[in-house]
């Protein structure tokens, strides 16, 4: 059966066997193929370009020539007015930003603590585990708006002496309570996804339970939960605005005040742009991280 095979230039034992970088010239057939492929690619590019021109063009033309276009532009995109109100909206956004920073830091700490309590096995911590579980369940399930109303208006109603009634502080507190529950759950799931063999390896080396947690489990868990945590950060930035219901003026409220005076919706668009300036880079970073970890995972599976 071993006859009837030819191997062209064969093992080409004449040339140096590993000389790959040499002056390789595509063969005739390859050149012909390239021409064919190029034609096809050009055709596809043409289709893409035509289709883009057609669709986007039609869209633009339809929008711009539609009877409502001038109204639309004047109502939503009156840039001169937008620039005029920008300082006020930015001032409002300072509230969102400050809140995000303060709440974000507290949430990280509290979330970690709650996650550690929930994943601990120490008998003495049993009641705290129980409380932590209830806490997470409740605050993951109740709308933030409701928590803000309950904490922001409800706690001062108790008229407890010495307790603040500042809506800003209480509103922030409500946000922290709610987001800590979200983040605790994210971190906990991160801790649980660290492969059991990693714990076994650490314990086999003689590391204690808490050393294993500190040196092996947590660092890996954090790496894993960075994307969902970034997602939560984006959500936090956006949700800080909800405390406007307590009378705090954030970016959305500032825009609303302006709009209610002028009946022009450009301030909302400005507010949206400000949020996008912060959130798009964050979501992009999250997506990139997720894609990378995905690629690593796929590479492992194929190895």
């Amino acid at each position, binding site marked *: 059966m071993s006859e009837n095979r030819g191997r062209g230039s064969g093992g080409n034992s004449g040339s140096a066997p590993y000389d790959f970088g040499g002056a390789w010239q595509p063969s005739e057939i390859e050149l012909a193929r390239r021409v064919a492929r190029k034609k096809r690619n050009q055709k596809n590019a043409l289709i893409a370009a035509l289709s883009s021109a057609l669709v986007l063009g039609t869209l633009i033309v339809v929008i711009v020539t539609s009877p409502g276009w001038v109204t639309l532009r004047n109502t939503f995109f009156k840039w001169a007015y937008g620039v005029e109100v920008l300082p006020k909206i930015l001032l409002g956004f300072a509230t969102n930003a400050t809140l995000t920073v303060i709440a974000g830091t507290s949430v990280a700490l509290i979330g970690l603590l709650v996650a550690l309590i929930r994943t601990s096995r120490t008998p003495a911590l049993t009641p705290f585990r129980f409380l932590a579980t209830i806490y997470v369940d409740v605050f993951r399930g109740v709308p933030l708006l409701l928590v803000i109303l309950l904490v922001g*208006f409800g706690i*001062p109603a108790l008229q407890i002496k010495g307790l603040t009634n500042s809506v800003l502080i209480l509103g922030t507190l409500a946000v922290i309570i709610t987001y800590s529950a979200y983040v605790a759950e994210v971190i906990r799931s991160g801790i649980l996804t660290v492969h059991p063999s990693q714990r076994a390896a650490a314990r086999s080396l003689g590391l204690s339970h808490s050393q294993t947690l500190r040196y092996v489990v947590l660092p890996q868990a954090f790496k894993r939960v960075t994307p969902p945590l970034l997602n939560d950060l984006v959500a936090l930035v956006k949700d800080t605005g909800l405390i406007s219901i*307590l009378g705090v003026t954030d970016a959305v409220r500032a825009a609303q*005040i302006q709009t209610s005076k*002028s*009946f022009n919706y450009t301030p909302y668009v400005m507010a949206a742009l400000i949020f996008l300036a912060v959130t798009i880079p964050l979501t992009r970073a999250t997506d990139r991280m997720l894609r990378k970890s995905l690629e690593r995972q796929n590479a492992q599976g194929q190895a």
Partner: protein
Amino acid sequence: SSSDESGTASGDTTTCTPDALQTLEAGVLTIATGEPAYYPWVIDDAPEKGEGFEAAVAYAIATELGYDQAAVKWVRTTFDAAIAPGPKTFDFNLQQYSITDERKEVVDFSSPYYKSNQAIVSFKGSKLDGVTTLQGITDSGAKLGAAVATTSLDVIESTLGLKASVFNDNAAGVTALKNKQIDGLVVDLPTAFYLSAVEVPNGIIVGQIEGSDAADQGFGLLLAKESPLTSCVTKAVDAIRDNGTLASITSKWLADSAGAPVLK
């Protein structure tokens, strides 16, 4: 037959009948108010009972236009939703809308049915307790609140030059005031009387702000921009004003809203 007459400037009452009026629902007059609607404007948040100043005015106008009680349908809107441009879900809306030129560009108003100053509601022992001048209010360092999109908000920002806590509606503002999270809430005078007397524990009216907004032309019924009903509704308001109905309704529901000190 009535269509060619509807354009005439002179008030021919024959066009303003339930048959001729282009209401949202034929033969039904859809009237909007707030949720919740407050005393003394609406009693018990039940406008369909006709009790309270605005509820009574609404029914008086309905009667004037030829609708009986049963042909009136009530709906609720938020304050700021109703004054935004665009089509409406009601024939007219009354919840203390001050007539201003800015608003007139996007909605229609009837002629005014009441004119009120703005007033500051507070509680005994607050930073505002005992303050008698506008300057005093500015100097007290008090935190004032108002509902979004209201004339009251303009008063705080323009007349007093202060930064306001802005709420979605008066109800939220009242909650904050009760919680002492703000020192004063700016509302129209009749509302202020009610809030200080009934809602806010140890409530006081610090004072009213006269001519707080030069452009303030009083409360009007709010209609969609270029509503076919505007002229008829205005005629009806004028009619109940002229025949004394409005005065008697006012004295019945807003009688106690008399003198509060005027802040200079």
